[in-house]
């Protein structure tokens, strides 16, 4: 979205300030104990996944009969599991990949744009019943999306949209809104009021304040939320199945990976490989968006 790139006004100076400061403040909290604690958490968190990774490289019989740690005593690597995952099905995996990407992109962009707008509306404009409405939206987070599947599908069937990507995009966008508005509203409120006031004095309207002040300052929050929305949509099975259906024309990667598990989820060796194939894209997204998190310095330096 082009709106996200708007960066005129005050932002450029802030970027400069921020970069010098971040390099300045590199040394703190580096006691050996702290490093050790971090290391322990990191290892604990990684071991289970590492076990899965090793399992994805082991032959089926060994996966069923012995623990993954015996790999070190008896290293036996096979790429058969990956071969089956990548080339095994009746449809090429690439098709599912394309579907996943087609489903995910609009399902991330649309709710983020709408939620950012709404968050601004609730945080910085006034209108009747504003706070009541906001609490209501906040409370909507708890509505389990399963409750909404049937009513939404009825509407889509009535509108003749059934079985297209449109329904999936709209469904994902709707389900994402309450949490997105809640998270982004919070970040919006953190922006110093003086900044907004100053812009208003200069004669800027809400649209201008939103595009020139809020969007640049909110990049880290938006990036963080985008990562999570991406993950939820990428890993979603239920919404895609209900609205798009499970045919290879529209089905995402998760449908294929779920099939890999066998009718009763017992083909661990294939599941391990499948899980790693589908994890790659989210990981790349996370790593590439990570640089935006550092810009969080912007908001702070203004406040201070």
């Amino acid at each position, binding site marked *: 979205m082009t709106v996200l790139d708007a960066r005129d006004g005050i932002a450029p100076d802030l970027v400069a300030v921020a970069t010098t400061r971040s390099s300045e403040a590199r040394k703190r909290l580096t006691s050996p104990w702290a490093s050790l604690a971090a290391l322990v958490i990191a290892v604990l968190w990684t071991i289970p996944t590492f076990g899965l990774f090793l399992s994805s490289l082991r032959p089926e019989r060994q996966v069923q009969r012995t623990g993954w740690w015996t790999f070190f005593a008896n290293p036996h690597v096979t790429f058969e599991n990956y071969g089956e995952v990548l080339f095994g*099905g*009746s449809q090429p995996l690439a098709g599912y990949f394309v579907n996943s990407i087609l489903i995910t992109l609009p399902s991330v962009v649309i709710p983020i744009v709408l939620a950012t707008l709404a968050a601004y509306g609730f945080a910085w404009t006034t209108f009747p019943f504003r706070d009541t409405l906001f609490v209501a939206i906040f409370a909507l987070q708890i509505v389990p999306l399963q409750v909404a599947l049937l009513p939404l*599908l009825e509407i889509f069937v009535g509108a003749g949209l059934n079985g297209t990507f449109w329904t999936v995009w709209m469904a994902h966008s709707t389900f994402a809104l309450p949490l997105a508005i809640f998270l982004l509203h919070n970040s919006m409120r953190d922006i110093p009021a003086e900044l907004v006031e100053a812009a208003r004095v200069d004669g800027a309207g809400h649209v201008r304040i939103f595009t020139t002040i809020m969007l640049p300052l909110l990049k880290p929050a938006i990036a963080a939320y985008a990562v999570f929305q991406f993950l939820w949509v990428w890993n979603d099975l239920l919404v895609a199945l*209900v609205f798009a259906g*499970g*045919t290879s024309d529209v089905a995402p990667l998760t449908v294929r990976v779920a099939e890999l598990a*066998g*009718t009763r989820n*017992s083909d661990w060796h294939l599941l391990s490989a499948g899980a790693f194939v589908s994890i790659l894209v989210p990981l790349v997204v996370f790593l590439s968006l990570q640089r935006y998190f550092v810009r969080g310095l912007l908001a702070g330096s203004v406040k201070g």
Partner: protein
Amino acid sequence: MPAVPSRRRSRTTGLVSGALGLCLVLAGCGGSNVAGGGGSQAGRGPECAAYTQYGDLSGKTISVYTSIVTPEDQPHIDSYKPFEQCTGAKVVYEGSKEFEAQLPVRVQAGSPPDLAYVPQPGLLSTLVRQTGAVKPAPAAVAANVDQYYPETFKSAGSVDGTLYAAPLGSNVKSFVWYSPKAFQAKGYTVPTTWDEMMALSDRIVAAGGKPWCAGINSGEATGWPLTDWLEDVMLRENGPQVYDQWVSHAIPFNSAPVSAALDRVGSVLKNPAYVNGGLGDASSIATTTFQDAGLPILDETCYLHRQANFYAANWPDGTDISENGDVYAFELPPINPAAPQTILVGAEFVAAFSDRPEVQAFQAYLSSPEWANEKAKAGTALGQSGWVSANTGLDPANLASPIDRLTARILQDQSNTFRFDGSDLMPAAVGSATFWRGMTDWITGKSTSDSLNFIEASWPGQ
């Protein structure tokens, strides 16, 4: 429990299927000799004779929604090819493991598939009564069911006296898996009565082994293999009449006959000397997946495993499943040797949500012997076993696997008394919920009376 479970084995499915389709069409159509109508149509060969009754369906599309996913879906898709080639219709197949939750949503939202393979009669009657969207079976299907299926299957596909769905695949649940090779080596013989089976168990214990292995873990359906156990023993302990009363709740779930049957199951599965070979103590039955539960037979850490014919699909590649092979199965023997043998069966059913002519034609095809044979041949060609139809027009010779042939023979044996899986017939609140949970609690230590009281209390409408 219904669904046809399996583990994926064949890696080549996708590659072979294309080439296979053609030869199946030729072989299938050519071998068919059931004349349906007058003469072959223009442009179609004589192998289509049996399909002329369905008319010209060119340009028509039929959607099928099922819970059957790869690799078991391939023989289904292959088996439609003769129909597609001869009538010109196109069948769109969609399989999903979320089928049971998805189907009601789609039906209620107004976008049902044309046909759905419903794995339990309980779900069928829920769909009929709650949505009213299921179409009664057309005359051609009713005629096929009357001609080719035992009465048990017909009544399981009917709701309130109206036939809605013909059976598709069927299975025999009253099987005990064992290893013929191990039996030969140790000098054991296949028991023909319950007492002989217990004597054999004691003999295995005396030789230092554990006779039985079992596992009931199946995700949210955990517990279903134990409901099959109880149903099988109910039939043998109390006879089919009491069984029917129990299933229809004419006698309470916690009445004396049920309690006696469950105690008999307990004499095997809760006996620490008998279970759980290679898997742990009796409570490990609750955490062992049903797919893995029989595998210790191959290692001879256990010798007996009661599970349906579809367990054939769970043995690893290269396992010899035959009378003298690595594994095979015998009928769970009767308790009273004088009583006729009763067989516990299950099936999935073809429910229609549309009465368009092409849908009814395809429905009729699926209930015909031609289809049952096509499906058998398609499965054989892919080297799959564990699938059988109860259609008496099925020629067992089309089934490659000895266990499938045995299953088909049992289903076609008129001297057998059949009873449908009771948990599939009970209200869903019991048959797909508290019955499973009650059995799971029972195997992890709850008493027989407490477990049965819990299930009885959950029976709706009291």
